[in-house]
């Protein structure tokens, strides 16, 4: 994987330079080393999967990227600059959005309001202008609403726009959460198990949305997923983690044939 020049994938997508570079990340909780000296990069426009058995440190890695955890060692480079330790809301302003393993929607709000919160980083009107509403605040609201409506169309959730999120079934909630992340128009989208707990049909829908997002908006995506069929089909490159170490990194084919990965995670088919 020494290649860093832009290239075109087999299905015609443009892969650019390195967008995010994790260098020697080490994360400890007390005496437990959740992540041990891991380095990998995410390139512009690609779909990057992080896989590994439970407790391997995948979600911790995502939390490091989104600013919840601050690694004891190592550097996070984003768009060619070293990132200072940041709070999650500051990371969001850099253009990194994410979804959660357990759905983290705002249950008391409607679908529309939930997705509108995704636009928060783009809305700048001050307190006083909002108190007056007419004028700046209203114009900004309508402009952002238009973008949100595009996302709603894209994810085919027009019919539930005004429904309180608490009333929706699981699969739709996952989709709304994706919509909220997309509304931010992120440069890097982190998906923590976007297909956990879904049936085959819902998984197919979700896979299609992920591919479309990547294809149409050129959004770089890093995802954690346990369904190997999905991972191998969707992703351009895969990082494999086990007990906080990186044991494999490469294209799906390379990873699939990596003996260490087979031993630790993939296993072999029974005869």
């Amino acid at each position, binding site marked *: 994987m020494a290649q860093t020049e832009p290239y075109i994938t087999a299905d015609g997508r443009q892969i650019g330079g390195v967008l995010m570079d994790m260098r020697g990340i080490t994360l400890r909780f007390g005496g437990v080393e959740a992540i041990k000296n891991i380095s990998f990069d995410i390139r512009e426009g690609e779909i990057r999967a992080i896989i590994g058995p439970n407790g391997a440190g995948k979600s911790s890695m995502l939390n490091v990227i*989104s600013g*919840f955890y601050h690694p004891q060692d190592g550097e996070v480079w984003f768009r060619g600059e070293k990132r200072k330790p940041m*709070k*999650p*809301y500051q*990371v*969001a*302003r850099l253009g990194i*959005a*994410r979804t*959660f393993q357990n759905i*983290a*929607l*705002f*249950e*008391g*709000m409607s679908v529309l*309001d939930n997705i*509108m*919160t*995704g636009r*928060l*980083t783009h*809305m700048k*009107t001050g*307190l006083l202008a*909002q*108190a*007056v*509403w007419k004028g700046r*605040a*209203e114009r*900004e*609201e*309508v402009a952002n*609403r*238009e973008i949100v*409506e595009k996302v709603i169309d894209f994810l085919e959730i027009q019919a539930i726009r005004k429904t309180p999120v608490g009333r929706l079934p699981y699969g739709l909630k996952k989709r709304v959460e994706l919509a*909220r*992340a997309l509304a*931010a128009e992120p440069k890097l989208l982190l998906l923590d198990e976007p297909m956990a707990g879904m049936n085959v049909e819902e998984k197919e829908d979700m896979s299609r949305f992920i591919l479309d997002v990547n294809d149409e908006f050129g959004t770089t995506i890093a995802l954690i997923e346990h369904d190997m069929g999905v991972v191998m089909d969707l992703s351009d490159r895969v990082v494999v983690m086990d007990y906080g170490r990186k044991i494999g990194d490469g294209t799906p084919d390379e990873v699939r044939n990596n003996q260490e990965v087979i031993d630790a995670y993939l296993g072999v088919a029974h005869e």
Partner: protein
Amino acid sequence: MLYREAGDFKTSYQADSQTFPIAFDRWRFWVVLVVAFCVVPFFVNAYWANAILVPFLIYAIAAIGLNILTGYCGQVSLGTGGFMAVGAYACYKLMTSFPDVSIVIHIILAGGITAAVGAAFGLPSLRIKGFYLAVATLAAQFFLVWMFNKVSWFYNYSASGQINAPERFVAGVAVTGPNTAPWAQYMICLVFLTICALIARNLTRGTIGRSWMAIRDMDIAAEIIGVNPLKAKLTAFAVSSFFIGISGALFFAVYLGAVEVGEAFGIQKSFLVLFMIIIGGLGSLFGSFAGAAFLVLLPVALKVVGVDVLGWPTDLVAHLQLVIVGGLIMFFLIKEPHGLAQLWRLAKEKLRLWPFPY
């Protein structure tokens, strides 16, 4: 047949996000507003103003304030009485120090001062949540009342420790002091309530309101999509205290005229306003009105029914009132945590489809 969404198509996002999406609601809103401004002032007498209308208007402002903090931003506060006291004393000091400035400006400034005090007492909310935050605001309540009792500068060293509102005029009409006409009291409170409610509505439907609700519903997810929790919580405390300060200033200057802090702004006041928003509905502006109306009307209604109609002794009715309020709080917390506003919303949803629900 008027109460219909069907056929009422919205062609712009402004129209879609307006306050009353149903035409009938819009009409009713304007009718209520016209009646409140143009009809009631001509018929209001001292009894109606003092027993029902003025306290309702003032408590509605306080309830809107607390609802922003507790209902929208999810930060429980038991300091409402203390913050009302800040508004009242700020207003008093301003009135006596700058007698030439209009009382309206004094009341707004009193709100601003309370906002600053509220934001300062909101600082612990960045570290502590829920029950513990409630106790911290309770400390604010006791500290503020103690301070206004202890530091005699606040009541201009008067012997009684009370503060008395001097007579002030708006457009030549007395609005404070002993010679105030009931309709003048009513009008100034109504104007403030209308403006406060409009501001609250605008704030809660926009970006700030969404970041408050995001913090309330799930603070971790709120942070990940770019809500600065410090800013969101402190603006909620400040805006909420602004309204509560205004209500405190009106309560002192317009309604009571003379105030002794422990009596007027004690812990009971904090609980009363909290009960209003619990019964009325957390996270709903309509709920603030409904709760304030309910808890202002309940004692009056009980007195009329119990004492005047049934001839029960006054103390029995007073105790009965406590029992009923307590029972209602439990009922609403268990059965309908979103209060009267939710019952109203459900009724409306049913009405929209009635008589063909399927």
